[in-house]
């Protein structure tokens, strides 16, 4: 069980959180993209071997949605890689 830092509550057990999936592409204007682009937006999410930015919800806590960078190989919560936020 991971130890996740909520921006408001500090370090809490993973069991207090709900995983909200990786941070994917920004939602495009659905009327301005092709079918292929829309399907890609819907179905292709980041799944790297290494750091990935993820959304987490402190559902059994303060209710905040926030993002962390997690290394998928180790479960280590890491700094945002250079050039990202």
């Amino acid at each position, binding site marked *: *069980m*991971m130890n996740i830092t909520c921006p408001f509550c500090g370090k809490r057990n993973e069991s207090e959180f709900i995983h909200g999936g990786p941070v994917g592409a920004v*939602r495009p204007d659905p*009327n301005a993209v092709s*079918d292929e682009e*829309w399907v890609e937006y*819907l179905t292709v999410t980041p799944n790297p071997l290494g750091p990935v930015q993820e959304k987490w919800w402190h559902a059994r806590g303060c209710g905040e*949605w926030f993002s962390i960078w997690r290394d998928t190989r180790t479960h280590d919560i890491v700094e945002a890689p250079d050039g990202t936020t």
Partner: protein
Amino acid sequence: MVQRNRRASGGRIDRNRPLHFTFNGKLYEGFEGDTLASALLANGIRLTARSFKYHRPRSIMGHGVEEPATLVELDGEDASGNRPATTVPLRDGLSARSVNCWPSPEFDLGGINQLLSRFIPAGFYYKTFKWPNWHLFEPSIRRAAGLAAAPESPPASGHFEARNAHADVLIAGAGPAGLQAALEAGRAGKRVFLADEGAEAGGSLLNRNLSIGGRSALDWVEDAVAELRGMENVTHLQNATVWAYREHNLMIVNEREPELDGVLERSWRVRVGEVVIATGATERAMVFGDNDRPGVMLASSVQAYVNRWGVTPGQRMVLFTNNNSVYAVAADLAAAGMQVEAILDCRKTVPPEAVKLVPDIPVHAATVAGDVRGRKGVRAVKAVPVTGGAGRWIDCDVLGCSGGWNPTVHLWSQSRSTLRFDEDLAAFVPDEAVQNCRAVGAAAGDLTLDRIVGGGEDLAYAIEPLWRVNVPGQRGKAFLDVQNDVSVSDVHLALREGYDNVEHVKRYTTGGMGIDQGKTGNINIIGTVAMQKGVPLQEVGTTTFRSPYTPVSFGAIGGLREGWRLFPYRHTPVTQWNKDHGAVMYEAGARWRRPGYFPKPGEGLQEAVNRECRAVREGVGVYDGSPLGTFELKGRDVPKFLDFIYSNIMSTLKPGDGRYGLMLSEDGLILDDGVAFRLDEHRWMISTSTGHADAVNQHMEKLLQTEFPDWQVLITTVTSQWNNATICGPKAREVLQAVDSDIDLSPEAFPFMSFREGTVAGFPARVVRVSFTGELSYEVNVAPRHMAALWDKVMEVGAPFGILPVGSESSHVLRVEKGFLSLGHEVDGTVDAYDLGMGWVMSKKKPDYLGKRSVQLRRSGGGTRRELVGILADDPNQQIPEGAPLTPGGRKEATDGLVTACVWSVVNNRWVGLALLEDGHARQGETAHVRLKDDVIPVTVTKPVFHDPEGKLLRS
């Protein structure tokens, strides 16, 4: 009763406290401080088990969690299966049985498997059970070779519990290294959590006869324990196994026999800053022909029985080694008056300081144990020179073996920290730490006491590896994994058949997959693979170490989280009334307990449901709608937000008005349906289905916080702030008037799909005109503290109108008659609003909303879809099973639909059904066919509505 192998003095047992126990039905005596294993040995019980696969006779080989041979099943209060006899503390009245043998280890019918052994090679399970199927073989295999049965019922008394804890340092193991680490951390003021699997602290010092600084090492242990006891910042647990090392330094500890009445076991979840792994080392077995014969033991275990439990496992010993550690064992045994016939040491030269410890014992260098005599007990061992030669037999009744020592790296490795093969120690040792942990003492490869505790006095460790004895003339099987009956020939077979990765070898042979996880034998499997492939051990590597380190009872893992405590039920203030009035209670989504129906005495389900439905259709009924998910949304941007999450337009609603809507997910599937009401300019109330309330809340919060953080919308969950009694039926208005309300209830002043605030029965109330039954309906929302009183009032005032309480069974009938969709019935993750005949809910005006593009995309491919229709069997009394498939012509073909609901309709006096049918909208009036196993039911396809198709009643 005579404990014939018990020494007159010595050992950490209390001879003044005899304990009586039974083993395989016979009564024996042991002492306080014994384990079941030490007590059995004290009583001279040699044959204690039969092996898993071949039913070979086995005895006790080890003295702790590494024990591979003797598993027992405990009866009575202690009922549990597959416990190593070495880890069962003896207590008065204990009753234990061997597993794997029937009727007894001496006379075991399953022993016939030994004769069949050449037909039970490695991979036997895979080869045999893939055809025709495993279930054919399972019963006989379970009986012949299975392990113990699970207890049939939970413990008669006591319970399990769980605790959370935090510490700066967790130390696993209270041997010399663990105690030393605890003293240092404790003195530095750190919060220390020290947990050790043994009954008392001291680790290997309890088994050995060593000195520290000129005093007995056990005096040092006693001082250390006393000092730790005096520190408030130290938690010290014995009988507590650290069995899992999880992410971010979360450690799971199983404490047995905690000092609290009624608690059987306690599971600790400890989040710590640093982990100190002081888990010691485990002695490994030697691999030679018939190395599993009763009387072949680990050398250190023989030493432990003599020193710690005052038991001499035999009279005439031979020791077999490849390292220095057995010389101290031999010295201890000699000091205890045992006859040590010889030490066989495979090394060409034995270090002189080792030989010096055993001046009166013959030491045979460059000699191995090549064979063993005695099927049910060792009678002699054949000493064979490694350089060749015939060898000679030496009579003995116990053969103590030491194949060297493995640092106990299980926790280290569970943390994902790496291992390296140390050539000097011939063992895998901790290498790079991945989490914040360090290994100390023997677990780190420091196998000499002085390097752990200053002043420790023992012989320096040295070893030359011997992975298996390879001399001519060995006849018997040479076991690598005694528990799972895996021999050298099995590993060779696996390699020949191409399973040459160590993980494959493990799974193909099952080597190391017993409950001992191969603590004494895995390294020999790796060594055997390395020898056969001609590569170094580092290259072969280890299999993955997984938790639990030792078996943990399911009860301890579950703790108090069992039965209703796992997911408590949710109740409304009407629950007690429902029970008092004979309701059959159901779980109705999201753990709400709701009434299913209210049978009168002697009445069945269908009669009760018919009575309730008739009341709603012809008079009046009332149900408790409190569990519906309810949210209040406030803020400037709520209209924009609702227009985005609902498929239709909500922003045009005037205060006091509401609208039904569908919520879609971005991929175009139906997420939920419900209603939205505008309370005033900036306040809204929406309701969701009961089971999806949490999912909808997550959905909305996620959108607002991650996609639209600048939108001003605040969501408050008010499901449990407002309870409601929903009065429905043609007489609903009259009843509500009689209950007394200051709201103008006339249809003109308070039309369908609107909302009014006022008082009802004197309580502040929000009254909403929605209908899930198709009848005139008022949902009267009040604060929970007023709900019971409101309910009583409605029932009292409604009595002259014939009001009846309505359960969820009737609600289902009423909504099916109207063709109102139900998530999970008509909405299954493939259908969209058009399929349900609800295209009107998909706004054409809005350029964008969640799911719009995806629904368009999905429908753009053309082709037919499964669409919601009504179905009527020719015979009105024909019930159609819900879930039954429809097939073309009723033939055994791919389905073209399924029945989603079928209910007895009181208003139609017949069964009516709903179905999702391929191209259903175009097939109205046609005949379709429900295909049952042995029958076909022709049905007429209709519109999915069987009552008041114009919707006049609900608007009345």
